[in-house]
């Protein structure tokens, strides 16, 4: 990785590359300076005169009727100015899921619980006070009388015949029951050389952005408008939703995402608290701030990945995967999120289960199951960490049964290079990638053959060492068609860019994607810079402000580089065309003979025949009387982009060691060979890969949101919910392949979730490989030391018996 120097003002990016292009270079991120100097502005850093503070009263019970709420003592608490319950919310609307399917039960998420609470941590009342401490004092003094009910706190409990209903509308607790494909798979199973059957389980995890959720709401009385600062990935979606809840005209609400301290999907859905903070500000006539604390984030924030797969797979004698029959259930908690709904996990899982591997017949049922646990959001990876685990483990088990090498069985099943565009058994079309090459390179980087030799020696010495792989396709940058096929009633697919040059020839790109650690201000500027022949240091990227950006959908689902980058490029091309037209007039040349280079409009092949962009920009804005009549004043260009989606691919490989005394898993090496098409900024790509891998390792070995059988949260702080540190996360070696996408304007494919998708399966197959000779199967995550020790203990007699 190379990094170019920044000028003292931190804005310029050093000399241009030899070919004059900025795409493909690891230039320094312009976002760095503010965070390195403490001058960033996250929501809690914002101050306002007269600011009031909000604290929520949250249900301690996972399932209960609310008999009474007594707010008298809270109102009498020093500093407290208002206490609001559901009865004080007037005609505000609840949050509703945006999905119209016959197999879906839409359930509303109330802003504050009125009659029933459905998970511990559900907001029941809110207290506004002069200080955060006084607000919490007041919240402690709200007396809520609950009549406890029996909670269903797991998939098994929720699907039991006599289970209590979380929602009356869904008596069996199934909120979505989708048959994705319904092939007759039985002939494949009857003729199979190997049939693998297994149940896979992945634990509930949560995103833990280092900045929790936070809002500051204020009413601008001068303009009669509301402003909501919120730590979100999706400011325009928040505006549409919150304006709808408060029945405000959208133009009277401005939503701003200032610096956002990570999101990972937890902040790509609309939170009740976002609307409630604005309601609180309206109630007290003052700016109001709410900053989620870590306990709230861990107990009341959106969670995910809590899934079970009952799967059968049929293989022929060559180890080729023929058919999969899958029953997928996802514990989606108490409510649907807005807008993506609780259907997002089962629908994604069922649609992509074969993933990067070929097959012919497919049958899948995907269910979203309500429980008395916090609702899910599309946490990084959305079901792909699970389906990659499922498919990799199926292949690993089949290899063992058929006495094939685990890498060889993968190679035989991966989509071959001559099969593109490849139609999957579940009906997706995968565009060209480097599936087999990525696997081969990963195996070579690890020194696979030598590792197998070493493993034999280690086993003979009684040591446990394993090699794991995960090969996957990552669907990214998908547009409105994909969401419409899912039957969403809003389709968050396209993106629009405004690219404008000012009279001094500086450029501003305004876009609805909303970066929060992805360095979009840098990478989108690189894309525009190449089209405009400008240093990216002269290009500002504006995001995260609904007043300043075109309507757009925000940053999630690995979409921003493909969709936002594509629209940025198209708009920059339009601006470049305008600049050439004006330049042609000034140079008395034909526009088609011109190009933009080094901040100038130059006549191709005619050295010295050129005009500076400053002169063009000045003419277009300040001296329009010199423009021909058919050229409008100004230098603005707009473009939208709504692509069908494009698949990046990667193979992860790992070597792990197990300590039989402690059950600890140590990762000795971790290699990623990834192909995200054209890289805009390799340093940013590698940062996304490494961060994603860390979150995937976390889900494989450390993290799990635990609720007791009665629904009480057990992991309420970071001593119980184990986010790994630098001690647990290994160095990740990365190799890049580059298969440009034909479906994105830049050739880039998205890659923000791949690390998280591959790592759980890679670690699980490595641990499974380490203990395969002991008859231990690794079919559930997280693989905790406690579980491993028990499994090793249980395997010992068998081992003795076998010896």
């Amino acid at each position, binding site marked *: 990785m190379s990094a170019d120097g920044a000028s003292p003002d931190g804005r310029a990016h050093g000399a241009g590359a030899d070919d004059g292009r900025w795409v493909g270079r690891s230039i320094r991120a312009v976002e760095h300076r503010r965070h390195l100097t403490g001058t960033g502005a996250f929501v809690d850093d914002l101050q306002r005169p007269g600011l009031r503070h909000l604290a929520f009263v949250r249900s301690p019970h996972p399932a209960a009727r609310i008999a009474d709420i007594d707010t008298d003592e809270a109102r009498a608490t020093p500093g407290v100015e208002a206490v609001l319950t559901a009865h004080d919310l007037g005609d505000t609307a609840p949050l509703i899921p945006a999905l119209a399917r016959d197999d879906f039960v839409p359930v509303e998420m109330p802003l504050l619980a009125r009659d029933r609470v459905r998970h511990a941590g559900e907001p029941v009342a809110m207290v506004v006070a002069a200080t955060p*401490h006084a607000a919490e004092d007041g919240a402690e003094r709200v007396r809520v009388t609950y009549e406890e009910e029996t909670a269903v706190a797991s998939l098994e409990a929720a699907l039991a015949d006599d289970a209590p209903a979380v929602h009356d509308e869904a008596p069996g607790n199934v909120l979505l029951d989708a048959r994705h494909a319904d092939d007759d798979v039985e002939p494949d199973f009857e003729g199979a050389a190997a049939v693998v059957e297994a149940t896979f389980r992945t634990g509930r995890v949560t995103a833990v952005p280092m900045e929790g959720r936070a809002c500051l709401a204020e009413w601008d009385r001068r303009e009669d408008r509301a402003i909501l600062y919120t730590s979100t990935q999706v400011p325009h979606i928040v505006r549409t939703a919150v304006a709808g809840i408060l029945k405000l005209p959208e133009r009277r609400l401005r939503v701003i995402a200032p610096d956002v301290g990570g999101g990972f999907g937890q902040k790509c859905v609309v939170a009740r608290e976002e609307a409630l903070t604005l309601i609180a500000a309206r109630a007290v006539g003052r700016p109001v701030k709410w900053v989620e604390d870590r306990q709230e984030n861990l107990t009341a924030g959106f969670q995910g990945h809590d899934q079970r797969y009952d799967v059968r797979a049929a293989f022929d004698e060559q180890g080729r995967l023929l058919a999969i029959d899958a029953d997928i259930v996802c514990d989606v908690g108490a409510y649907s999120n807005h807008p993506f709904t609780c259907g997002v996990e089962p629908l994604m899982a069922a649609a992509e289960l074969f993933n990067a591997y070929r097959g012919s017949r497919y049958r899948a049922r995907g269910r979203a199951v309500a429980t008395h646990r916090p609702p899910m959001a599309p946490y990084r990876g959305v079901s792909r960490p699970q389906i990659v685990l499922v498919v990799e483990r199926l292949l690993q088990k089949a290899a063992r049964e058929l006495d094939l090498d685990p890498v060889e069985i993968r190679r035989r099943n991966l989509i071959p290079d001559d099969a593109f565009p490849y139609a999957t058994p579940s009906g997706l079309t995968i565009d060209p990638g480097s599936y087999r090459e990525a696997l081969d390179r990963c195996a070579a980087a690890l020194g696979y053959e030598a590792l197998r030799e070493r493993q034999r020696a280690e086993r003979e010495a009684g040591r446990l060492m394993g090699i794991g792989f995960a090969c996957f396709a990552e669907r990214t940058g998908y547009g409105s068609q994909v969401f419409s096929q899912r039957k969403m009633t809003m389709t968050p697919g396209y993106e629009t860019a405004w690219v404008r040059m000012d009279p001094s020839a500086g450029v501003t790109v305004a876009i609805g994607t909303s970066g929060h650690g992805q360095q979009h201000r840098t990478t989108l500027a690189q894309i525009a810079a190449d089209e405009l022949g400008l240093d990216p240091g002269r290009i500002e990227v504006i995001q995260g402000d609904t007043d300043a950006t075109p309507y757009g959908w925000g940053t999630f689902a690995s979409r921003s580089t493909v969709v936002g980058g594509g629209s940025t490029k198209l708009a920059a091309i339009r601006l470049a065309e305008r600049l050439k037209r004006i330049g042609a007039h000034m140079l008395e040349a034909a526009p088609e003979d011109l190009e933009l280079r080094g901040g100038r409009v130059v006549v191709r092949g005619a050295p010295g025949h050129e005009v500076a962009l400053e002169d063009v920009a000045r003419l277009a804005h300040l001296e329009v009387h010199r423009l021909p009549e058919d050229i409008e004043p100004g230098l603005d260009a707009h473009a939208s982009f709504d692509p069908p989606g494009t698949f990046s691919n990667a193979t992860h490989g790992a070597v792990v060691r197990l300590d039989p005394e402690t059950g600890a898993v140590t990762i000795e090496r971790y290699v990623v060979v990834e192909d995200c098409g054209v890289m805009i900024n390799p340093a940013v790509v590698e*940062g996304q890969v490494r961060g994603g891998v860390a979150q995937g390792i976390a889900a494989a070995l450390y993290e799990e949101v635990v609720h007791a059988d009665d629904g009480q949260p057990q992991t309420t702080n970071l001593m119980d919910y184990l986010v790994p*540190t630098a001690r647990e996360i290994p160095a990740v070696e990365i190799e890049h392949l580059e298969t440009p996408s034909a479906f994105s304007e830049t050739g880039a494919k998205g890659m923000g979730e791949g690390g998280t998708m591959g790592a759980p399966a890679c670690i699980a197959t490595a641990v499974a490989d380490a203990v395969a000779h002991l008859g231990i199967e690794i079919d559930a995550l997280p693989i905790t030391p406690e579980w491993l020790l028990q499994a090793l203990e249980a395997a010992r007699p068998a081992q003795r018996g076998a010896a």
Partner: protein
Amino acid sequence: MSDVHLIRVVVNGEPREAAVEARRTLADVLRHDLGYTGTHVGCEHGICGACTVLVDGAPTRACLMFGVQADDCEIETVEGLADGDELNALQEAFSAHHGLQCGFCTPGFLMLATALLRENPSPSDAEIRDAMASNLCRCTGYQGILEAVRAAADGR
């Protein structure tokens, strides 16, 4: 209110005074009473380290110390690292090695690394990893952070 205490601290070399309630943490005082919002609060129970500042030179969780306990102490925060517009070597290294993404944990890591390199100017890779394992980052996977501290230690 009766439990307000007047404290004197020196923050990044500048003498400051604040009247603080006893229950306000040093993080509250720095951020909200004195305006040093570069110090972030990520967990309020001493695990994530986003609020790490130096108190009389020692890396300290500002969320686990009351403001009144900092009376008469010298505090260093992220705002004191750069020399005007000039980033210091550690800040430069974090940028060059892409040791930050969302930036929320960054001030805590910078202060932690500042203390490490003062105490041990030539740490081994293992010592860097050990020290940096005190704080949490959710974006980077830590590698860029470790490389940055290595580079700063090596004067690169």
